[in-house]
């Protein structure tokens, strides 16, 4: 077991875990943050997506199922639980709600964090940029159109 210190949603925390334990499992089992979901467990579906800042101030979208916890040492992680502001939803969350971008909810936390990452890079994304930015996040309910609508509305609101 290793003692690993990282910052999750602004809170510095130390966990004792096997170094190859997946970041996803640490978030869900040790820190009880169950927003990130396990879909495929092989980096294809994006339902475990979180944002990870390795120390350079750049929060990158990553699949938490593919990260051994030792590689998260010293990083800042943002999960869906860290996105809301007090008791107010983040504008992206609000847009997914209003546009029907969420149905069963399994993909939604990852979709919203992927959208966050996308809008950081492209504040006014084209439809092609939205499609590419979310290509690693699979949704089996919505058919994606409502998700694209939600992202476009979020871009308009923040722009």
């Amino acid at each position, binding site marked *: 077991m290793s003692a690993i210190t990282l910052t999750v949603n602004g809170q510095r925390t130390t966990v004792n875990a*096997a170094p190859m334990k*997946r970041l996803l499992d640490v978030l869900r089992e040790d820190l009880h943050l169950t927003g990130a979901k396990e879909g495929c467990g092989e*980096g*294809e579906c*994006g339902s475990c997506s979180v944002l990870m800042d390795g120390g350079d101030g750049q929060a990158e*979208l990553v699949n938490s199922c593919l990260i*051994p916890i030792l590689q998260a040492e010293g990083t800042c992680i943002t999960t869906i639980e860290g996105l809301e502001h007090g008791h107010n939803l983040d504008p992206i969350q609000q847009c997914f709600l209003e546009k029907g971008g969420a149905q069963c909810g399994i993909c939604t936390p990852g979709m919203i964090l992927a959208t966050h*990452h996308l809008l950081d890079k492209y504040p006014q994304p084209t439809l092609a940029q939205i499609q590419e930015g979310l*290509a*690693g996040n699979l949704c089996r309910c919505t058919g994606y159109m409502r998700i694209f609508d939600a992202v476009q509305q979020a871009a308009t609101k923040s722009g």
Partner: protein
Amino acid sequence: MRSNVTDYSLIAPATLTAALQTLASDPTLTPIAGGTELMVALSAGRLPQKRLLSINHLKELRFISVTPETITLGSGTTFTDIRGHAGIASDFPLLAQAASWTGSIANQNRGTLGGNIVNASPAADSPPALLAYDADLTLISAAGTRTMPYRPFHLGYKKTALAPGELLHSITIPRKFAAYRAYTRKVGTRNAQAISKVALACLALVTDGPDNPGIRQIQDIRIGAASLREFPTRCTATEQAILNHPILRETLPATIAAARAALATEARPIDDIRSTARYRAAVAGNLLEEFLHSLQGAS
């Protein structure tokens, strides 16, 4: 079935020097960079290597440096780093394109060029481009460094020239292809983040022939391929078969036929979970034809 993670060890020496010393004292350690390959195996309960060495955090391996003659990418360069580099986009479009279709954005943020090479999948996305561009590899160990051409690096299925205790340090590409036509296409199940069924990355220098002024011909040609052999391959027989061929509408069908025939002699595609040998061979020939047609346009 899921692996029991307590069966695995992982250490992360703070510097490249320390990592190389650790690897020298125990060459059986398996290096892990972005984890987009090994962690998939872990989740599926099929990662046989139990003791791993993390190199993901080593800043010494994550750089892109440009000289007038070359561009050198550290093995820890991510696909996102490659996509964001203006010099690669302008000088090495085949590599920029390969980076853009390697997995999803999240995987491009973690996956590294070095991992893509050393993992040695026949279907890997960046090797065809690196083969076409005549890349050199610099390998490093506690004993020192050595440089070798990338082409002979792959020795067999998932077998490479990397010696025990060695890491891939960097990849160097000569900046001599500005005048070349570039063509690349990957055929997978879907556009986004599918693993290739077959892919080609091609370069051709088409200029007036020395003996036939006014008639453009193939002065130099390089064809890198994924999923046609047991490792990423340069299709040298195909290149030789059409070198110095003129690019004329009347002769192009014969050139295409010669290229297809040569490709059939050196391609050894297989049937597997993603495709069939027959489909791969047919599509590779079609991509080759598309590439040769693209050489007809104005230079």
